[in-house]
């Protein structure tokens, strides 16, 4: 009988398998937040940092799935729409 792995183990296995990629995503997120804090009150600079991070996230998604051999148009669109949603809402907060 094959024991079913727990959800945590499944996610953990995926993260371990793509450790460097996930570390890159996490560290870029931390750097993004640090820059946002440094540029507190400077909305133009925060907007530039935001744009770079969202573009990075979309590219990360494409490269990650490409390496994972699971790249599909629907997946690319998923990353683009989630990224665009974050971009539009945060832009309106920064440029208000």
């Amino acid at each position, binding site marked *: 009988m094959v024991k079913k792995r727990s959800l945590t183990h499944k996610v953990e296995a995926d993260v371990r398998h793509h450790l460097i990629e996930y570390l890159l995503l996490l560290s870029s997120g931390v750097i993004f937040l640090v820059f946002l804090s440094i540029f507190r009150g400077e909305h133009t600079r925060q907007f530039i940092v935001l744009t770079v991070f969202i573009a990075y996230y979309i590219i990360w998604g494409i490269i990650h799935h490409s390496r994972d051999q699971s790249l599909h148009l629907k997946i690319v669109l998923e990353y683009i729409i989630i990224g665009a949603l974050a971009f539009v809402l945060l832009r*309106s*907060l920064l440029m208000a």
Partner: protein
Amino acid sequence: MISYAAFYHNSTMYHIKHFFIPSEKNNYRARTLHLDFLTALLGIAVLLSFFSSAQTKILGIATNITIDRLMEKTNEVRGSHNLRALKYDGTLAHAACNKAQDMYQSNYWAHYRPEDGKSPWDFMRESGYNYEIAGENLAHGFMFSDGVVDAWMDSPTHRDNLLKPEYEEVGFCVSNGVLQNEDTTLVVQMFGKPLAQAEPTTPDIAAEKTNLLAASDQASSPVTKSSFISLDKLTLNSSLIIFSLLLIVLVLDLYFAYKMGLVRITGKHFAHLVFLGIIILAILIIKNGAVL
């Protein structure tokens, strides 16, 4: 007679469930994560963004930071430390507005004007405010009045100013303009304890506020109170709701897909969760500006 199963299948709960939990009815993926639903969310975001930006452009005012709320919040924090409430002083407010306009015109973000070292005390004296003791707090880039006072309370030097027992009066200026090539809302708060002989008249608060508006320069516009619905606040709250909803749906979808042993071609939930978590933290950073 309708059976429970039929009732359940026709109920609202049954339909709502498909937005959160993968099943045969939603092609084994939470409906909220379908591309058409995400696109609809994006459409709502674009509309919100459009109306929010139109409000700012058309009205040309900061609708969220108001002198009334700053005054109320300042006295709230003083009250919570058993300190007496400060009185609004029109002369101090006038000095604060002169300082704000000077910062815009000379393009600096500092307590002292870089060219000649002109101080906040000079602005107070020029406005006719003679003080025994005085102080100044500055802020810019904030979205809400409460955020400004909270940020001052988090900074030891600004906190000392807010909670100084000697102060008796306060004046504010909330002014929109361009500072260091950026559209911003500047908040200048001036505190003081007037010299005993230097208070021949106690100006009426309402009258002073009117004078303040009338005397405003074209380079900036002071804001006392706004009667408009704040679309910024709506956008901020909507953003937090949308991203939190997506986080919840991703967790539920991941959990139930695992339970059902589904194999699907989708984006990586863990990556989306990391991204959305970072974006929520970013929103919390963005809503606050800088203090000096």
